[in-house]
């Protein structure tokens, strides 16, 4: 027992526990986020006697007499100061790391009035952020220091909320002050805790499950196994191949396969009970990688499948082989890219309970509440489910699949009790699908002027233990492997193999991060062979409006690759002239699902009793700022002002299904649906006031219509729009470290330029990790071995100067010309960095993370 002070109030912790558990579970100070509970992430940072400290580290018994501060305990002036500074700088995205970052800033500014940028970087360097790349957080702290000294908080610099205005995001207050709720921040009355007992072996037959000892433990509410599932056991994003609970006789596919769900009154009993569930197995040989998977006598990952091929894609236009044969210059190379962990700051969590209307209500953190609804309904065999998105602490593709949502729904459905199901960070690292590792062979042929004649490639990937989005990722890897260039002889074949490794699925870039590394690296080498600069070879081949991409699509007037090249030119020329090692790469990325799949955006604008328009779209804001985008859409396309509009988080019973937050699609697809609803609302406002429109619903929907892959038409429209980018890396010759990154992105119309920059900076830093350091090693038991803090994510004191340049190019006739930016920010980074290192030391590097750089991991 110990007595100490929290936010100035004397409190007594009876039980010795981590400060984090005490602050959250007993005091419900939920600004203190639980990102890993192992000291790695920094999301639970508090201030103890003036010094920052992670709340998960100290035990309460050791805190006698200490003074602890959380953001709830900041003075009103400080709350205003940090809310303003973080909003004005655009420093808030998913928000999960932000309360910790705010306290780092406070601890610094309490000691130093006028901190240098270096001091700010060091003050936050132990706290990870995966969204922002730290750039704008550093700016926010600089601004806070300035305003603190001045003693006055000004008005936001932009306030008109129209498209193109860098207004403060609408979720800044709740994220800076920590009162916004992620699922883990809910504490329902009489809430139970649920967790899955998972397979001990990556591949084994489950022979028996004995739950009797666990059930007998006092405080255990239920132990649920496959036979208790009322509906369909298997879930899965596209293919239903993932057991919700492995039945007796079933085959396990990876170490994350759940076998029994334990439900208990508290978290300690839960952990004890999980150990009492006895599962007997017949361990079987596992498949460790694609090389093993494709052997004819390889063990099969799925009983139901004839082999381990999850997906095969073949894309061919023109005559690639013939064109390469006739080319003056030909280069062939093999490339490899690694597994990557999303490392979003918020681990997966779902809370479920019976709502007042007799539905199982699931509070989720996911990339589509409607996808969660669909899967939960199948699992329960019941329509009585409602899903509501909470704040989502980052996704990047890693929260598209079922991890905890369906388990929470099942527990509430069977026990009648409210439940929280949360993954520990170690479970999170194992369970959600990762970025696919790829093995790629590419051949490129060019004429004497560097004009691409043809490209031929063969790639394969490890898609792990279940399909997830392995097929579409492979497809996108193949369709974008040509690069954003104007040539017509292109052929690629790709195969994704099941293995007993953790699953791979969606990850920012969706397969294109991998093939872009190959094609852009080859293009850099080709430029050298021909004797022109990497910039010149791209400028000569760049796709221009009206030209035909290798996939056959004729691109529209909005196509802005050339503009990105022209915008980067002064920086490129200056770096070259200064004799600095510099690398360059381009990319394109679809906005919208494309390839003939039904891609609907839907939005309802409902005028409610408060005489305000409430925006309901079944589309998740996963940190990118969708709510702000939609409000800016409404302000631009109606006579209404910001104060007339309320953004509602996605749910499944009012908000219409607007698809997953995936494929850089929400700004364009849901944005256009919203704009269409605005047309109807504006017409109604011509004759009536908002008060008179109470209860009226204005509905907009938009189908992003595209042609199927390989459609038999002369110029298939694979995607409604593409974003284009050129990125550049400059190295410091002496240290060998990155001096600066310049990233120029064509976004059609930047809805909120500041948010756009934030996406770019975050994407660039994420892919600096991918290029230079991040790994996700898996051992011989198919187990990922590293903790969160060891993944190699970049930290605030390590990032170079990052110059984000947004190019607006009109021409797209939907969504006011806005093209999604989410993924492309991460795509050309790695090949640009690889080329810069080649310029430094003359070594061509063909696998990631790049070897022989100062960033290489030690130990």
């Amino acid at each position: 027992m110990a007595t100490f002070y929290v936010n100035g109030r004397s409190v007594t912790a009876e039980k010795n526990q981590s400060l984090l558990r005490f602050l959250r579970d007993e005091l419900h100070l939920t600004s203190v986020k639980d990102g890993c509970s192992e000291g790695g992430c920094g999301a639970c940072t508090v201030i103890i006697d003036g010094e920052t400290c992670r709340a998960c580290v100290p035990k309460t018994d050791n805190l006698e007499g200490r003074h602890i501060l959380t953001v709830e305990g900041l003075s009103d002036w400080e709350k205003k100061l940090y809310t303003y500074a973080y909003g004005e700088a655009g420093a808030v995205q998913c928000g999960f790391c932000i309360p910790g970052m705010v306290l780092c800033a406070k601890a610094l500014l309490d000691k130093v009035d006028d901190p240098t940028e270096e001091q700010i970087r060091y003050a936050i360097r132990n706290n990870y952020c995966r969204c922002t790349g730290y750039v704008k957080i550093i700016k926010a702290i600089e601004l806070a220091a300035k305003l603190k000294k001045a003693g006055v908080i000004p008005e936001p610099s932009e306030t008109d909320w129209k498209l193109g205005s860098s207004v403060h995001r609408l979720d800044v207050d709740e994220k800076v002050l920590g009162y916004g709720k992620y699922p883990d921040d809910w504490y329902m009355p009489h809430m139970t805790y649920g967790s899955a007992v998972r397979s001990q072996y990556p591949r084994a037959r489950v022979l028996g499950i004995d739950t009797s000892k666990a059930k007998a433990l006092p405080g255990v509410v239920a132990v649920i196994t496959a036979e208790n599932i009322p509906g369909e056991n298997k879930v899965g994003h596209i293919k239903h191949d993932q057991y919700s609970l492995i039945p007796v006789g079933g085959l396990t596919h990876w170490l994350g396969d759940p076998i029994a769900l334990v439900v208990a009154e508290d978290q300690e009993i839960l952990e004890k009970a999980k150990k009492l569930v006895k599962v007997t197995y017949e361990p079987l040989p596992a498949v460790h990688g694609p090389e093993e998977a494709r052997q004819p006598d390889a063990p099969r990952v799925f009983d139901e499948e004839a082999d381990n091929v999850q997906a095969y894609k073949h894309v061919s236009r023109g005559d690639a082989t013939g064109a390469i044969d006739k080319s003056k210059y030909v280069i062939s190379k093999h490339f490899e890219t690694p597994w990557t962990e999303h490392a979003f700051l918020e681990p997966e969590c779902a809370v479920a309970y019976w709502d007042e209307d007799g539905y199982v209500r699931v509070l989720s953190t996911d990339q589509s509440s409607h996808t969660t609804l669909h899967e939960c309904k199948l699992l329960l065999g019941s329509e009585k489910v409602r899903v509501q998105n909470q704040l989502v602490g980052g996704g990047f593709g890693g929260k598209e699949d079922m991890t905890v949502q369906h388990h929470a729904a099942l527990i509430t459905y069977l026990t009648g009790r409210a439940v929280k199901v949360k993954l520990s960070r170690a479970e999170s690292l194992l369970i959600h699908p990762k970025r696919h590792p790829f093995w790629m062979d590419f051949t490129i042929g060019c004429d004497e002027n560097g004009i691409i004649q043809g490209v031929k490639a063969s790639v394969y990937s490890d898609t792990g233990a279940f399909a997830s989005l392995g097929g579409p990722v492979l497809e996108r890897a193949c369709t974008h492997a040509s690069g954003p260039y104007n040539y017509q002889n292109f052929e690629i074949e790709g195969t994704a193999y099941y293995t007993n490794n953790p699953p791979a699925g969606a990850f920012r870039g969706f397969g294109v991060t991998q093939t872009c590394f190959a094609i852009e690296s080859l293009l850099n080498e080709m430029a050298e062979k021909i004797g022109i600069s990497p910039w010149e070879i791209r400028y000569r081949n760049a796709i221009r409006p009206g030209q035909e991409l290798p996939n056959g699509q004729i691109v529209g007037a909005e196509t802005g690759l050339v503009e990105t090249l022209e915008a980067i030119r002064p920086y490129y020329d200056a770096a070259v002239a200064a004799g600095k090692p510099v690398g360059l790469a381009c990319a394109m990325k679809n906005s919208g699902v494309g390839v003939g799949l039904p891609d609907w955006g839907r939005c309802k604008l409902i005028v409610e009793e408060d005489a305000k328009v409430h925006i309901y779209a079944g589309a998740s804001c996963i940190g990118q700022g969708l709510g702000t985008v939609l409000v800016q859409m409404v302000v631009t396309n109606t006579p209404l002002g910001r104060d007339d509009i309320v953004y509602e988080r996605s749910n499944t019973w009012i908000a219409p299904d607007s698809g997953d937050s995936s494929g850089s699609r929400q700004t364009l697809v849901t944005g256009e649906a919203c704009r269409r609803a605005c047309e109807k609302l504006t017409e109604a406002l011509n004759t009536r006031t908002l008060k008179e429109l109470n209860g009226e619903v204005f509905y907009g929907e938009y189908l992003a219509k595209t042609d199927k892959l390989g459609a038999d038409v002369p110029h298939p429209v694979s995607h409604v729009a593409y974003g284009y980018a050129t990125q550049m890396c400059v190295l410091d010759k002496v240290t060998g470290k990155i001096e600066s990154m310049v990233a120029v992105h064509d976004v059609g119309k930047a809805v909120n330029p500041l948010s756009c920059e934030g996406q770019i900076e975050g994407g660039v830093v994420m892919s600096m990790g991918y290029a230079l350091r991040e790994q996700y090693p898996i051992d011989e038991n198919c187990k990922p071995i590293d903790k969160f803090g060891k993944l190699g994510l970049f930290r605030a004191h390590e990032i170079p100067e990052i110059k984000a340049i947004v190019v607006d190019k009109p021409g797209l006739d939907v969504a006011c010309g806005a093209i999604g930016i989410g993924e492309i920010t991460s795509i050309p980074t790695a090949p640009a960095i690889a080329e810069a290192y080649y310029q430094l030391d003359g070594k061509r590097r063909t696998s990631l993370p790049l070897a022989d750089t100062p960033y290489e991991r030690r130990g």
Partner: protein
Amino acid sequence: MEKRFPHQVALVACNDGCRNISCSYGCIGCGMCVSICPFDAISFNPNGAAEVDETKCQGCSACVIECPRGIIHLHEAGSPMVVKCSNKDPGKLARAACTVSCIGCGICEKACPSGAAKVVDNLSAIDEGLCLSCGMCAVKCPRHAIYDLRGVLTPRS
């Protein structure tokens, strides 16, 4: 003198828990570092071990060079988690030599979330380039050989 940030400061890797027991590695209280320090930054702590005042230390390395036991090294001032022990004997001997010695048990290595804490030659060592300053090692160390120099997670000395 103005300090550049980040900067390095000296650390005496011993907290002198041996008192009257003999340790062949630890601080012997000779006072060489105390007398040589040009910034008056080193004094004896209540345990009798030399201790550096990081606010005064300029990282000049004079003490590092002069310490007859070679147990003073520079570390980054921004990384407050430090191992205050230099005993490289196997666990049993190290345990017998001192009440707050590192016995190389490896608990810090297991607790460390970032791979910064490693036991090398029976002695815990923290790679400050990897360290996240969380202090998990300091609170878990059964020998109290790892300190939080800010005095938040452990006593200062």
